[in-house]
């Protein structure tokens, strides 16, 4: 170690949260004066759900252990899914590769070098059939991380269920389908914001009427945080995105309690332990009030914010990668103490590559240890009433509420995105974070303190470079096998529907059933909607 006396050096320890909220040396009753436990916290399972959405929380049902996974071809990913289910994982979560996420087929020139790299390659219904081969969709809940082409992939999923003989009313799972955070943070967009919002709303409406147990959207702060936001910004922008989706669905003619119970959320679990727990608690409370007071929801299920959490990918270090197991454990513990409904724990090697089977097994075991070995899941909101945590929860609520009001004043989230507001707030926060790390004010163990000069390499998952070729061959065979007249007709009808105001989902279902590809369908929609090019905000 380069710094043997490091532990006794006080500098580099920051007494504020990651969002910059001040942290006092000790908290007492004077810090939560005015807090009314009945009004502001409620019992677990009671409005405003600050303490959790279920009265008994994890005693009734543990969170779903759901590892995000996908790589190379559908054949290889299908094998990994079956392995994870055998190891006791309780839900699936599909990671798609970049061409799929951007609406390109595996054989498109833009896909060169990217097929199967960041996730599994899916170009057609045939790929989805292989992906879920021997996985009973009636029993396993499946989450799918896809946004711009979300409706297309969802139609393929519904078509696979049909082929398995599973009634859509039995399907449960989650489609990410959150386009606003793409413009804000992750930047996987195809069309301009308004037609994109129309597609999102098409899915929400179609799900409410035909696939009632399925979550048609996962309103996501995760990527906002990964892009460098603070916890406060993550909370505020996510909830304000939620408000935008609600407004569009109401505008469509749905009533609030028809769709709001199926809105789900996705948050990051980052390093600042107490701030993260406060963030989840504040999120539940704020959403409950927004739904009841702003939108007049009557159904309690509409007011309950359910969320998935994932430990922070951006906190993983390349240096001393085994330390990442420890970071992930602490972050996962925060998510559990904050009342998450499902959880993904990152693997120790993910600063390098997609995880190896060994690394992902340790990540899953981390959740199982938290669930079964140390008693933290035995009681609901065990930290509730802590002077510090309650103060921090109030501070998070106030700071995020200020942002939400500013965005309301700008005319909503789309207007704010068009003027680059959330983007520039995040860019500024990420630059500050990096500068704090550079100056040593923020210590990252193994990176700017406690550095080791020589490190042993770790075993990494190698993605077979032939994945692209195999996917292209399959696709070429499919294109010559299918009824291309039917495909053309289905795409024409989809274009026509997209140009009007009808729900596009029935037309998309027809197109995927005759094996129109992701690329062909997205191209047809691009013909109608155009594409989006952002003005970069530095």
């Amino acid at each position, binding site marked *: 170690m380069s710094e043997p006396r490091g532990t006794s050096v006080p500098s580099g320890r920051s007494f504020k949260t990651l969002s910059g909220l001040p942290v006092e040396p000790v908290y007492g009753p004077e810090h939560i004066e005015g807090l009314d436990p009945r009004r502001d916290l409620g019992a677990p399972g009671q409005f405003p759900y600050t303490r959790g959405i279920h009265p008994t929380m994890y005693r009734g049902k543990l969170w779903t252990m759901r590892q995000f996974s996908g790589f190379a071809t559908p054949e290889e990913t299908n094998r990994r899914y079956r392995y994870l289910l055998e190891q006791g994982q309780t839900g699936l979560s599909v990671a798609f590769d970049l061409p799929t996420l951007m609406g390109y087929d595996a054989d498109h020139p*833009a896909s060169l*070098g*990217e097929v199967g790299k960041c996730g599994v390659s899916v170009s057609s219904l045939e790929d989805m059939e292989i992906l879920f081969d021997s996985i009973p969709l009636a029993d396993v809940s499946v989450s799918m991380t896809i946004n711009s082409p979300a409706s297309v992939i969802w139609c393929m999923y519904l078509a696979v269920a049909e082929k398995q003989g599973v009634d859509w009313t039995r399907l449960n799972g989650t489609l990410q389908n959150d386009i606003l955070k793409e413009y804000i943070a992750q*930047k996987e967009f195809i069309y301009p914001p308004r037609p994109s919002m129309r597609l999102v709303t098409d899915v929400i409406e179609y799900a409410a009427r035909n696939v009632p147990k399925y979550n048609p959207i996962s309103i996501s702060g995760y990527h906002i945080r990964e892009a460098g936001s603070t916890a406060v910004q993550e909370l505020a922008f996510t909830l304000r995105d939620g408000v935008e989706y609600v407004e569009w669905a109401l505008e469509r003619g749905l009533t609030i309690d028809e769709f709001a119970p199926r809105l789900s959320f996705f948050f990051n679990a980052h390093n600042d332990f107490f701030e993260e727990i406060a963030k989840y608690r504040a999120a539940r409370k704020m959403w409950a009030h927004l739904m009841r007071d702003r939108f007049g929801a009557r159904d309690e299920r509409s007011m309950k914010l359910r969320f998935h959490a994932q430990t922070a990918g951006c906190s993983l270090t390349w240096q001393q990668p085994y330390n990442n197991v420890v970071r992930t454990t602490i972050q996962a513990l925060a998510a559990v103490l904050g009342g998450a409904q499902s959880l993904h724990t990152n693997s120790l090697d993910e600063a*390098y590559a997609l995880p190896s089977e060994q690394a992902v097994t340790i990540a899953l075991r981390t959740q199982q240890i938290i669930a079964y070995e140390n008693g933290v899941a035995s009681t609901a909101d065990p930290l509730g009433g802590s002077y510090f945590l309650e103060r921090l929860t109030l501070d998070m609520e106030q700071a995020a509420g200020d942002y939400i009001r500013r965005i309301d004043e700008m005319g909503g989230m789309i207007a704010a995105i068009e003027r680059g507001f959330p983007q520039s707030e995040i860019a500024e926060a990420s630059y500050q974070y990096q500068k704090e790390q*550079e100056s040593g004010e923020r210590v990252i163990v193994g990176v700017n303190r406690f550095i080791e000069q020589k490190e042993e390499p770790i075993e990494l998952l190698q993605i077979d470079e032939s994945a692209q070729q195999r996917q292209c061959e399959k696709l070429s065979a499919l294109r010559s096998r299918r009824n291309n007249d039917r495909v053309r007709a289905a795409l024409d009808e989809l274009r026509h529907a997209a140009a009007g105001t009808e729900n596009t989902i029935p037309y998309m279902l027809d197109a995927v059933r005759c094996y129109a590809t992701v690329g062909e369908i997205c191209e047809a929609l691009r013909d109608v909607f155009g594409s989006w090019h*952002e003005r970069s905000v530095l």
Partner: protein
Amino acid sequence: MDKRIRVLVAKPGLDGHDRGAKVIARALRDAGMEVIYTGLRQTPEMIVDAALQEDVQVIGLSILSGAHNTIVPRVLELLREKGMSDVLLVVGGTVPDEDAERLKQQGVSAVFQPGASLEQIVDFIRLSVKQPA
């Protein structure tokens, strides 16, 4: 004459994770360099054209998708074709050690992996760019 070092920061491929590219662009700018940020989804052709037009001494590529083995050799090839081999090419992102070595053998000046400090990157560019007298 303005002696500031001119750098093109580019984000090739389909990936939209631009946090690193933006942080680097700001850091280079704060260090007194002239920075042009291309924005997202640039092909190797677009990047080399922009480098030529902007007359930069350095190109910085940010790649986190694992597609570096396809993208970077193509950029090098185009630089050679256009007689721009004097332009310094640096790469930042999730590039495993053995890939980094190979890319350097092919003509990349430096590969900055996760955890590299802004100071390191700024210093490398300052020392490597030959300033006109």
